[in-house]
């Protein structure tokens, strides 16, 4: 049998948001004419789906439909600081602060309607584009409610800031509180190793990750799937090569990336262990998704053919060299035993 299969696993942990420093973000919210919501915050989409997450968060908090949320963003002169798009911080930092800003805007509208309907603010409910007072026949659309509020001289807006309770690390022993939210994960990889060509195919990955509360499960899966495949690129093929500072891999013809034929089936398992600190319970997934894949694949290669790759990437050449070295060792061991 030239092709041998095996399985390996690995676990991981990761911190959410900026490391060993105080992270912070701000947002503005407005319940707008026609009953839409306008959210303004200083960061935008890098592909992870944050705009959709923010629309869902604002819709959830205010009670409008997600398709009626408009996100104005990405401009240091027009939006409050939300800092950077990285550190697996977007859903945690920006999601939470948008929730807080949206709550404040909702409260302004609810207080106005409570006064108008002469009911307690706590008896007012919102959802699916409507606002109502429990146990009454008061029920109107958000568009009507905004118009009523404006007739009373109120524009329903909110603003919020969200910061982390974190510290730097001690310079001698590293003691400190680098993050306030941690996530954990585990992945299993199944591989097939061709012992004639040295080629490794990753056939499946099972990826179980705690993300806190999942705002958009499909988006979480997308992050896991993308992270796993980027990691497989580093595990098996990608290699930026330099010789005396000059690269020999300056284009995609030489710098090899995973294509549709290289990717495993990724089976995602979302674990929700809510963050107790932020208002939403969300955490993050962008970076942790990538961390266990490489060791899981290397452990699976070992399981399949008994060679361990310590030096990435596990190219066919390295696999074949390791198999040859193992064969020599095995035969020496047999000779010694005889």
């Amino acid at each position, binding site marked *: 049998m030239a092709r041998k*299969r095996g*399985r*390996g*696993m*690995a*676990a*991981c942990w*990761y911190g959410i948001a900026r*490391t060993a420093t105080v992270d912070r973000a701000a947002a503005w919210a407005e319940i707008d004419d026609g009953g839409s919501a306008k959210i303004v915050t200083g960061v*935008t989409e*890098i*592909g992870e*789906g944050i705009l959709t997450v923010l*629309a869902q968060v604002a*819709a959830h908090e205010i009670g409008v439909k*997600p398709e009626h*949320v408009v996100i104005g963003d*990405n401009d240091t002169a027009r939006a409050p600081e*939300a*800092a950077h798009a990285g550190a697996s911080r977007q859903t945690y930092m920006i999601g939470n602060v948008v929730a807080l800003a949206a709550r404040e805007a909702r409260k302004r509208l609810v207080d106005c309607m409570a006064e108008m309907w002469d009911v307690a603010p706590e008896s007012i409910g919102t959802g*699916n584009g409507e606002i109502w007072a429990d146990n009454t026949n008061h029920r109107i659309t958000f568009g009507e409610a905004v118009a009523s509020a404006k007739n009373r001289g109120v524009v329903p807006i909110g603003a919020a800031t969200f910061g982390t309770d974190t510290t730097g*690390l001690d310079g001698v022993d590293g003691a400190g509180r680098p993050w306030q939210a*941690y996530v*954990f*994960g585990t992945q*299993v990889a199944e591989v097939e190793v061709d012992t004639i060509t040295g080629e490794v*195919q990753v056939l499946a990955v099972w990826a*179980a990750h705690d993300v806190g509360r*999942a*705002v*958009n*499960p499909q988006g979480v*899966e*997308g992050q896991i*799937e*993308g*992270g796993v*495949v*980027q990691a497989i*690129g580093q595990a098996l093929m990608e290699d930026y090569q330099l010789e005396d*500072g*000059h*690269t020999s*891999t300056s*284009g995609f*013809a030489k*710098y090899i990336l995973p*294509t*549709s034929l290289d990717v495993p089936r990724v*089976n995602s398992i979302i674990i929700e*262990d809510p963050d107790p600190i932020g208002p939403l319970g969300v955490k993050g997934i962008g*970076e942790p998704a*990538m961390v266990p894949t*490489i*060791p899981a694949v290397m*452990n699976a290669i*070992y399981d399949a053919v008994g060679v*361990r790759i*310590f030096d*990435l990437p596990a190219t066919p050449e390295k696999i074949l060299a390791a198999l040859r070295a193992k064969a020599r060792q095995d035969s020496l061991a047999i000779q010694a035993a005889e």
Partner: protein
Amino acid sequence: MSEFRLEAVVNGRKIRRTAKPSQRLLDFLRDDLNLTGNKEGCGAGECGTCSVFVDGVLMKSCLLPVAKAQGARIDSIESLAPTGELTVLQKAFHKAGASQCGYCIPGMVMAATAALRANPFADREEIKERLGGNICRCTGYQKIFDAVELARDVQNGRLPATALLETDTTDGEVIGRNVRRIDAPGKVSGRLKYAGDMTMPGMLHVQVLRSPHPHARIVSIDTSAAEAMEGVEAVITSKDVPGQDGFGVFVHDQPVMARDKVRYVGEAVAAVAAEDLATARRALGAIKVVYAPLPAVFDPVEAMRVGAPVVHDYAPDNITKHIPIRVGDVDAGFAASDLVVEEHYSTQAIEHAYLEPEAGLAYVDHDDVVTVVSPSQNITHHRHMLARIVARPVSKVRFIMSPVGGGFGGKEDMIYQGMLALLAMKTMRPVRLVFTREESIVATAKRHPSRTTLRMGVMADGRIRAVSLRMICDGGAYGLSTEGVMRKAAILGAGPYVIPNLRVDTYGIYTNNTPSGAFRSFGALQTQFATESHLDIVAERLGLDPFEIRRINAMRDGASTHTRQTLGSVSLLRALDAAEQASGWEPGAPNVRGLARGDLGHDDVRPPVSLGTRFAPDSKQEAAE
């Protein structure tokens, strides 16, 4: 060669235009017809984002001289949804969550359209092969395959068209639901404009002269011949920086353009703004730089030795950052261990390879605000740094974050925005720079290559007594995110395990290699690769199942981390259980038992690839039915 008259049918409309023989079809579509939906990702036919139909055949327009379009019927991504109503396939991409950054998506939609035209009944494996010429860096392709299968089934009537509709949230529950991505329609239709798709009236084109040397003193730069060229509006060097010339995520050690010396191949030395791209490129050749090569260092371990070439004067030992973590008494822990295992691990530099190469525009607005539009992952910090560089108040510097066609950390560095701002200020005209793929690879940060020595002492029952982890990373020529990467690598490197005695040291080192910087998983990937490989080695020696050794050592609720932080809820055991159950893991020590395993080849495993033999023999037959 002279210009010629091109006649073709583009997106159903007859066109007669003057074209230049030097243009590629992609340039003609994007620059002359303003059809910017199809993108340039690599310029070499490798990534597929430029894919269009030529007489109905899927072609990579970056490889086609425009003359090949003479008399042809050309259809770009804009042809699919001419009135804004998306095709079934585009709707399926929206529904399935198949677009992330979106930069590959126009080409991917074209390739998928071609796939379903070729075989409306293509199965998942055939779809994969038919999309094999298109690279996506974000999605891992799974949701793209899902989308094409969904479109196939809707087109074939196996699924109703309602399968493409938005998730119903009329019950008021919005969180935890697969609400469709609000940015997807603009991405699947090619309507979303990335920085490289944007133009401004009167815009100049920027090109950058880059260092051919890994380490050299700049003796002189003569820009006079370039400046005298017709069409050249400005040439800038480090002399044109009015303020404090330095940027970086943690330490501001990198000048906008090389100052006094170059430290890596590809470092910016000068930049030109000209009326057109060809003139800007020609002007680079007219800039005369005299270099005096210096001894260079390419290996981080050598760079740490006394007497090695010094990359930055402020760091005579070439150490960018060292992060230590100390818990307990490691030597005593090893002495008390039943088994001590030491191994060496290394990881390579890798490229972010976002499909969107760096691009940006800059202008000085009517209120004298220096404005930069670019796919920056950190507009807040970039604004602060640029204000210092151009010596203007923060309120007079504005960053607008254009849609990011993939970042992964690689667009956190302000690697080109400073040059754009300076050229806009010098010319008082809008300027634009679009990197080539080669420029993007050579000039921008990589993932830190690492070398780790890991020593672990365990008891016979699997409990870890002591760990020492020492990692040396090549940070390359500039600091960028190295400090943060070393910190995260150190904090997380020993894994989510209870370790009573721990010594961690991570070192980021200056060399004359391409700088290393932020990259998704930021140091934790390198160190946890070592730790998680090592745990399996130890598990085999002890005869323990790999899940079991991790459970024995797992941090639990209320655990103290390696930095002595007390955790609340710890979900590690839940994650271990979930992965073990979902995969149907057969317990056993990791002792090369692949051949004997009973848990392989489940339904949730893809078939292995054997190129050319996977198309179902009956697919044509089915299509005929």
